C-alpha cells in the first residue's frame, strides 16, 4: 500500500469536459503533481509494469490453451494503478472483471487472478485480509453492492472508502442508476470510478448515451462528477485521492460520493474471445497508444531522477519473476476437486443437495473421471 499523503487539491470545481491532467503525453508536467514520495511513485510504476507484463502473459496462456477467456487490461494501467493507489489499507475495492491491476495493488495475489480465469473455484477465494469484492461479471451489478457496503461502513461509524469500478457501457444499466442514486441519497462513502475505455465490446461510447460526458451523469444524483485523463496515473491518483478523502469526511459540505470518468483506451481485445479489428480502426488504436501511461510515467520519473536504467532493469526483472512465479504457482495448483462445486452453495448442505452430492460421489467412485471428461 502507498503511504498516506497530505490534503489533495480540490478537483471537483471544474467543467465536466475538462479532465484533470498532471502529465501530458510525453510525461511533461501540466498540472499539480500529487504529493507522493519517490518510493511511492516507483511503486506505482512497478505496479503498472507488473500489470502490463501479467496481461501479456495471460493473453498468451489463453492462446496456448492454458487458460480460459481472459479480459486484457493493457492501456488501462494508469487508471487502475493510479486509483487503487489512492486507497488506504482499510478501504475496499469493488471490481468488475478487468481490474487485475487494481487488485494487485490491493494485495490480491496474481495467482488468485490466474486461478479465477483458469476456472478454478479457488480463484474465487480472495484472502480474508484483502479488501476486494468478488469479480462481478453482470455489468454494473456491483454498483449497488458498493453503495450498500459503504453504507454499512458508515452506519457502523467506520471510516472506510469504497472504490467501485465499472466501464462506459455499464453506465447504461439500471443498476448503475439505482446504485449511484442510493449513494447520493444516503451519502455513502463510495467512489464510482468509470473506466471509460471508449468501447463496450464493439459498441462505441457515443452509442451508449447521448450525453457529452459520462461525468455529467453525476448531475442526476446531485453528487460530484469529474473527468480525468485515465492514462495519466498521477492525475488519476489525485482525483481518486480527493474523492476518497471526501468520502470519508462528513464535515465538508460536499456529498461524499463521487463519479469519476477516467478517459482511457483498451489497447487489446475486449476479451480473448473478441476480435476488435472487426469494429475499430488501427488508426484509432495508434492514436491512443501514443498516450500509453507507462512510458509517460517513466519519462516523468526519469526526468525527476527517480528512475534510471538500472532501476528500470531491476523492475523489469522483478516483474518478470513475479509473473512467472505466479503462473508456475497457478499451474501447479491441483485441479479443483469436483466436490468443491457443492461446498459453498449454502453454509450447510440441505438434505436434497447432500443426496445429490452422494449420488454424484458414488457414481464418480464407480465410473471414474472418464465418465465426466469423456468429450
Amino acid at each position, binding site marked *: 500500500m502507498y503511504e498516506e499523503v497530505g490534503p489533495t487539491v480540490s478537483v471537483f470545481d471544474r467543467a465536466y469536459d475538462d479532465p484533470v491532467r498532471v502529465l501530458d503525453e510525453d510525461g511533461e508536467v501540466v498540472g499539480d503533481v500529487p504529493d507522493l514520495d519517490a518510493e511511492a511513485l516507483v511503486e506505482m510504476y512497478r505496479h503498472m509494469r507488473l500489470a502490463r507484463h501479467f496481461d501479456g502473459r495471460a493473453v498468451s496462456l489463453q492462446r496456448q490453451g492454458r487458460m480460459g477467456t481472459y479480459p486484457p487490461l493493457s492501456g488501462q494501467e494508469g487508471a487502475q494503478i493510479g486509483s487503487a493507489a489512492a486507497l488506504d489499507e482499510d478501504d475496499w475495492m469493488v471490481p468488475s472483471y478487468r481490474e487485475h491491476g487494481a487488485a494487485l495493488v490491493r494485495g490480491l495475489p496474481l495467482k488468485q487472478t490466474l486461478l479465477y480465469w483458469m476456472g478454478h473455484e479457488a480463484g474465487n477465494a480472495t484472502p480474508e485480509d484483502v479488501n476486494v469484492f468478488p469479480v462481478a461479471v453482470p455489468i454494473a451489478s456491483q454498483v449497488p*453492492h458498493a453503495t450498500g457496503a*459503504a453504507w454499512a461502513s458508515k452506519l457502523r461509524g467506520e471510516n472506510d472508502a469504497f472504490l467501485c469500478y465499472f466501464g462506459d457501457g455499464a453506465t447504461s444499466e439500471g443498476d448503475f442508476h439505482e446504485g449511484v442514486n442510493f449513494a447520493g441519497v444516503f451519502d455513502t462513502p463510495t467512489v464510482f470510478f468509470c473506466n471509460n475505455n471508449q468501447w463496450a465490446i464493439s459498441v462505441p461510447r457515443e452509442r451508449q448515451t447521448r450525453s457529452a460526458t459520462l461525468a455529467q451523469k453525476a448531475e442526476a444524483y446531485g453528487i460530484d462528477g469529474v473527468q480525468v485523463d485515465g492514462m495519466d496515473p498521477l492525475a488519476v491518483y489525485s482525483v481518486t485521492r480527493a474523492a476518497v478523502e471526501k468520502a470519508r469526511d462528513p464535515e465538508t459540505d460536499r456529498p461524499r460520493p463521487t463519479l469519476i470518468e477516467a478517459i482511457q483506451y483498451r489497447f487489446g481485445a475486449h476479451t480473448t474471445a473478441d476480435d476488435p479489428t472487426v469494429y475499430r480502426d488501427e488508426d484509432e488504436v495508434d492514436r491512443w497508444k501514443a498516450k500509453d501511461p507507462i512510458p509517460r510515467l517513466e519519462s516523468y520519473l526519469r526526468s525527476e531522477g527517480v528512475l534510471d536504467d538500472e532501476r528500470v532493469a531491476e523492475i523489469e526483472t522483478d516483474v518478470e519473476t513475479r509473473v512467472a512465479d505466479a503462473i508456475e504457482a497457478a499451474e501447479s495448483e491441483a485441479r479443483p476437486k469436483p466436490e468443491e462445486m457443492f461446498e459453498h452453495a*449454502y453454509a450447510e448442505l440441505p438434505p436434497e443437495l447432500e443426496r445429490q452430492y452422494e449420488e454424484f460421489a458414488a457414481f464418480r467412485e464407480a465410473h471414474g473421471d472418464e465418465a465426466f471428461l469423456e468429450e
Partner: protein
Amino acid sequence: MSETQNLTVVQAVRDGLYTEMREDDEVLVLGQDVGKNGGVFRATEGLFDEFGGDRVVDTPLAESGIVGAAVGMAAMGLRPVPEIQFSGFMYPGFDQIVSHMARFRTRSRGRFSLPMTLRAPYGGGIRAPEHHSESKEAFYAHEAGLKVVIPSTPYDAKGLLAASIRDPDPVIFLEPKLIYRAFRDEVPEEPYTVPIGEAATRREGGDVAVFTYGAMTRPTLEAAESLAEVGIECEVVDLRTVSPLDREAIIEAFEATGRAVVVHEAPKTGGLAGEITAIIQEEALLYQEAPVKRVTGFDVPYPLYALEDYYLPTAARIEEGIKEAVEF
C-alpha cells in the same frame, strides 16, 4: 410460562422484526414506505420510532437498488431485511436476487456469506390491482443458494422470520397477504425460532396426504373437514419452506396412503406441485395408488380482481381434487 400476545400474521411479522432488531443491532430494515408509514400493510409499524431512521430506512423506489444495497450490507456483516412492497415487484431486482444474493457465498468460496432476508407480501385474494397478486415462489426455489419460506400462521410467521434473519444464508420470505389479517394466534412475546426446512402436519388422516403452504392451507383444511363428513380423512401437510423442501415429511406422509394432492395458488406448469410429484414418484412409486393431483392456479396471467376467485384454488376445488385422488 412465557407471555403471549394474540396476533394476526402481519402483526406477528412485525413482532418478529421488532424482536430480532431488539436482540441484534446488526439487523436493519429497508424498503419503500417501511419508515414513518410503517409499511403499506403495517408490517413495520412503529419500528421507525423505536429504532430510528438508520435501522428502518425508506429507500428510493428501486428494487434492484434495494436488493443490491442489501447484498453489499450483508457482505459487510450486517443482517439487512429488505422489504419488496409486493412480490410482483421483485422482478426488477431479479438479477440481484439470482446472480448475487443467491451466489455470493459460492462466488467468494464462503468468505462473504449473506445473512439477509428478503421479505415480500405475496399471493392473491385481496382484490388488489394488477401485478399485486403474484405467487412465483417456483422461480426462487429453482435458484440454488436461496431458501424460500412461506408461513401460514402467526406463530410460524414470527418464528420462521427469526430463523430466516439469523440464518447465515439468504432467505426469501414470502408473506401470504390473503391471511395477513384473517385470524389470530397466540404468539410468544419472547424471541423464538421455527426451523427452516421443516413441514408441519396440520391435520392427521389416513386416506390421502394433501401438501400445501401459505394462504392455501386454510381452504385445504376446510376441504379436509368437509370431506371428513363423508368419511375421507386427509393428512394435511403445510410445507412452510418450499426451498429446501422437507422431502422426508413429504415421503412419509405419502407412503402412509399412497395418495396425494398438492395445492398451490401459483400457475400449474412449472409450479412446485410438479416438483413434489416428482419427488414422490422418485422415492415412493411403489406405494403409489393414484396419480398425484395438482390443484393450482391456471397457466394464465393472474386476472383482474373480479375473476380472482375463479383463479385461486377454493375449498370446493380442493375437495374435488382430493376426491379424485381418493377415488382413483
